[in-house]
């Protein structure tokens, strides 16, 4: 895994070297003299010349209109070129012994010894200028850099910030160095040969230092706390040294072979020289690969794993193939081999790196938070899983970082593949977008492929992010124990699967549409058809849609949860099931009501937070109210002390005094506050205990007694008395009215 880094470093270096070679400025050409211009106009005025130019233009048009070369011609040409190249290589092999001599001759011819020495003098001066400016810059930035290095970092964010700041300071120094040295160089004009030489040298120095800055950013060989990669001190030092050495060698070779080619005008000797340099690089890379793998294994104190061996073989094969392609003068093929060969190991490496970063971030975040019992085994399972990839079912994620892990991996993968694709297109000079705009079949194909790939990748990113976020919340949801009230997250169990399905269907539809549209299928009728069908279904299923939509809003409002006692219009009951269209209430007598959400105007929830219950007792007018208060208080204490529901009482029973006076009695009110659902039990016991207490203390409940005062009762006969009593009974009963229905409560 670690050696991949090395290879990537090598890749970066060679990229820079390649771009460097491309940056060489052509020698300035002097402006034509007046004589030349006169001659040119004279020639243009000549009719023969004009005819010839016109002919040439006509034939050029004909050639232009002809078909681009087909595959067979391409192949034939490639084979021919390769054959020619092999011949050249054979010549170069024969010329190999003379490269030193030829170089020395040309060198002497191009630059006399005093010139060489003067060139060296100039290089020294420019390096000194650059280094002096950088030293000056450092004097001012060093305190900051030292503070960054010495500040303790605890979180990933701090580490990344500190590392980036440190790299930024170094890059600033590097830029000033480049500005000082190359700028001082550019301020003077030079003979072309000397310019090539000096510029090449400066650029080599600059490139190697830039690579070193990158390495310091990622490996931080001297400051373990700022290291972005999870390596030990020795490994980091070893890796940064080898990578720097190898890439430095590549850059130097590229520069040397460029100088040689310019000096000897692309001769056979130049070819021999660059092939020899490439061979040296190849051998050095082989040696470094073998040595480093062994060394790293030794540092870890174990023999090489099968994986490491595979890596080594892969890198060796890529190196060899790239070397062959380079020797055969197929730079595009070489870059393709290098990029594709490094893509797979690079992806694995990046995945491990993201995993490692997340593990570390999680461990650090956990260390900051109060420790939890479930952490250690969770971390272990994560570490195990990271070996196999993110497609396996993971253990329930414990930390918010977890939901971003697959997303981060996708993004990293997305960016790498995209970058490699773009790089390949640039290397092959495909001019992708031009070609995609061309009305040919291949142009269409390219465009379809690009569009589909982009649509798929973006949809994949969104889908992974949404899925992981939804799954995390779903996993965090623990169904309530039977008998306990569910928490507010219970509604998510209803909403989230719906959301997920909706999102998936939407994404699928959009991706399909965009692919179809890029393939040239006219999707307007499909959209219109879907619109018409949608309208039809919408009308037909108006109430269904209404139910679903209002259901979503009820759920978002958190109006009710499973297990709560609610009242809707005339219906009461415990919420038993919440579906996407309706909810079901279980009446306490067993009946189930099914209510579509669209029918709900308003809803009363009896199970939220607290319930106040008021009870009334009718006592005679002669009752001692203070005693009543005292007794109620005592009963309240008894209730609170009850082992079954005592905890559920928020405010225990207390007297509210006389609420009102009635014809024959006083109404004494008491009230209590409990958690929802406890009130019935408390009420039952409260009635019982209060009655008992009243009875024990001689307070009786007022009873309805009708006192009938009859005048001259002594004079009445027993019959008359009986008749009067009967009439009074009737009157009293008539006043009381028929018995009221019992309130509907569980």
């Amino acid at each position, binding site marked *: 895994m670690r050696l991949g880094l090395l290879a990537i470093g090598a890749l970066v270096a060679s990229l820079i070297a390649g771009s460097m070679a491309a940056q060489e400025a052509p020698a300035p050409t002097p402006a034509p003299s007046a004589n030349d211009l006169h001659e040119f106009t004279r020639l243009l005025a000549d009719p023969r010349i004009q005819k010839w130019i016109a002919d040439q233009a006509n034939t050029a048009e004909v050639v232009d209109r002809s078909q681009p070369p087909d595959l067979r011609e391409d192949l034939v040409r490639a084979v021919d070129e390769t054959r020619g190249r092999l011949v050249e290589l054979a010549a170069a092999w024969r010329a190999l012994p003379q490269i030193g001599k030829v170089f020395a001759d040309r060198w002497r011819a191009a630059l006399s010894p*005093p010139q060489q020495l*003067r060139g060296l*003098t100039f290089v*020294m001066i420019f390096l000194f200028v650059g280094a002096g400016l950088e030293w000056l810059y450092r004097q001012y930035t060093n305190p900051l850099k030292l503070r960054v290095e010495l500040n303790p970092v605890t979180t990933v964010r701090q580490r990344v910030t500190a590392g980036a700041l440190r790299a930024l300071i170094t890059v600033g120094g590097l830029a000033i160095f480049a500005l000082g040295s190359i700028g001082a160089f550019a301020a003077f004009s030079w003979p072309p040969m000397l310019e090539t030489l000096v510029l090449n040298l400066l650029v080599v120095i600059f490139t190697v230092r830039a690579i070193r800055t990158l390495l310091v950013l990622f490996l931080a060989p001297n400051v373990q706390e700022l290291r972005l990669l999870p390596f030990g001190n020795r490994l980091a030092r070893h890796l940064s040294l080898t990578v720097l050495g190898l890439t430095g060698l590549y850059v130097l070779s590229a520069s040397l072979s460029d100088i040689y080619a310019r000096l000897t005008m692309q001769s056979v000797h130049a070819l021999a020289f660059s092939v020899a340099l490439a061979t040296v690089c190849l051998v050095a890379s082989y040696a470094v690969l073998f040595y480093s793998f062994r060394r790293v294994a030794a540092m870890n104190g174990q023999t090489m794993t099968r994986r490491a061996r595979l890596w080594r073989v892969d890198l060796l094969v890529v190196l060899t193939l790239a070397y062959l392609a380079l020797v055969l003068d197929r730079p595009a093929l070489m870059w393709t081999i290098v990029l594709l060969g490094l893509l797979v190991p690079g992806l694995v490496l990046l995945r491990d790196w993201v995993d490692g970063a997340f593990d570390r971030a999680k461990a650090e975040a956990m260390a900051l938070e109060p420790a939890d019992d479930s952490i250690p085994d969770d971390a272990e399972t994560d570490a195990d899983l990271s070996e196999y990839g993110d497609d396996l079912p993971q253990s329930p994620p414990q930390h918010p970082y977890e939901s971003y892990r697959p997303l981060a991996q996708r993004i990293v993968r997305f960016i790498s593949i995209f970058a490699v694709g773009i790089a390949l297109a640039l290397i092959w000079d495909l001019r992708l977008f031009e070609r995609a705009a061309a009305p040919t079949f291949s142009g269409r194909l390219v465009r379809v492929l690009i569009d589909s790939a982009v649509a798929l990748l973006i949809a994949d990113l969104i889908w992974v992010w949404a899925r992981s976020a939804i799954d995390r919340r779903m996993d965090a949801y623990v169904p309530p124990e039977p008998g306990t009230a569910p928490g507010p997250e219970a509604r998510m169990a209803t909403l989230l699967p719906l959301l997920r399905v909706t999102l998936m269907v939407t994404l699928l539809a959009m991706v399909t549409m965009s692919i179809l549209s890029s393939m040239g299928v006219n999707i307007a009728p499909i959209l219109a058809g879907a619109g018409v069908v949608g309208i039809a279904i919408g009308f037909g299923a108006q109430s269904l849609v209404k139910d679903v939509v209002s259901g979503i809003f009820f759920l978002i409002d958190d109006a009710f949860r499973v297990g709560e006692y609610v009242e809707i219009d005339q219906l009461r009951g415990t919420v038993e099931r919440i579906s996407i269209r309706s909810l079901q209430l279980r009446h306490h007598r067993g009946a189930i009501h099914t209510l579509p959400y669209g029918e709900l105007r308003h809803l009363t929830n009896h199970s939220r937070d607290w319930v106040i219950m008021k009870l009334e007792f009718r006592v005679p007018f002669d009752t001692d109210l203070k005693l009543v208060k005292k007794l109620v208080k005592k009963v309240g204490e008894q209730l609170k002390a009850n082992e079954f529901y005592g905890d559920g009482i928020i405010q225990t029973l207390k007297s509210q005094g006389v609420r009102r006076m009635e014809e024959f009695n006083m109404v004494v009110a008491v009230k209590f506050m409990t958690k929802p659902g406890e009130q019935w039990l408390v009420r039952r016991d409260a009635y019982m205990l209060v009655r008992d207490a009243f009875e024990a203390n001689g307070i009786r409940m007022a009873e309805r007694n009708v006192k009938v005062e009859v005048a001259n009762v002594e004079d009445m006969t027993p019959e008359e008395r009986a008749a009067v009593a009967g009439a009074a009974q009737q009157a009293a009963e008539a006043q009381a009215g028929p018995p009221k229905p019992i309130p509907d409560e569980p």
Partner: protein
Amino acid sequence: MTSSSPARSRAQLIRQLRAISGLYLLAYVTMHLLNLSLGLISIDAMDAARPYLSGVWTGPVTGNLLLLMLLIHYVLGLWATYCRPSLTGTSQDLVQALSGLFVIPLLAIHAVGVSMLKLSGVVVDYETLNRLFWLTNPGIGLVQVMLISVVWVHGCAGFFIALRARPGMVNVLPWLYPIAVAVPVIALLGYTQAGRIVLAEGLEPVYEQVPNLDGTLPDVVPYARIQQITFGVLWGSVALAALVLLARALRSWLARPGQVDIETLGIGRITVQTGQSMLDAFRAENQSHASLCSGRGRCGTCAVRVLSSDVDLPPISPLEQATLDRTTAEPGIRLACQLPLHQSGTIEVAPLFPPDYTFEHGTEGAIERPIKASA
């Protein structure tokens, strides 16, 4: 607290001599470089300013004084290079020591050549020299550029290390840095420009002898003798440098038999070889430790409190005592840079200053005890 034992006064004298001679040489080099930078205008401007910028340093009296200062600085520098516990503590130390050793071999051609030519009555002006350096013998020209770089780097290293060790200099340093870069850069650019002029002209140098006061022509220029002396100085100084380095290597080879455990309070334990100073041990193990003067025993910021030790620590040297007297007067405090580890064992120390301490922190940065403001 300033007990003036003879040993201490001798050590301080040596140090002051080195500093004064170094400053004198640095002032000379600065003027000389300023003269060189006039090449940006023209070679004639260089020659016009020569009597005022360079000539005053190389008159009959001042020339000998300059030579004396150079000798003093060279000898004392060699001695210091030998004595210093480590040359590779920081890159700055290494640069200072190596550049110091390289100065004389690089200087030999220029100094011997110019002074001998002058002695034989040849007019040595910038026109002649630029033609020589750029046209006739670019190898010597290259050596001059190396000489300027090396001398300036060496001078600045010593100068700034000495200044950083002084608390009063904190506010001056940021103003000196740009000057320290500007002087050699402009001088080198002036030299480059002069070279381009010379190359464009393409004229060979002429060595014309000024007639003596009595009208007779002086003897022929003893070129063979100049070359002989130059080579003598060159190889002699190279041999001396090699000798010093060899002696150092021998000394450190003789004294590395054991291992020392250093436990730093609140930081950790390191196991290091004997035969280096404690500061170098910290550096070798990448453990950051404050040291503003880079281990010269001047600034006192590398001070540690020795909590416990089962080895016999060497007695406090006069120089160390002087610095300790100046900065902190408590017993049990040592300067890590002046504390050689020469026996196996365990030492437990606590640093007095945080690793990123500078005098800008004032007194609040010190971990234990503020440093006394030195007069």
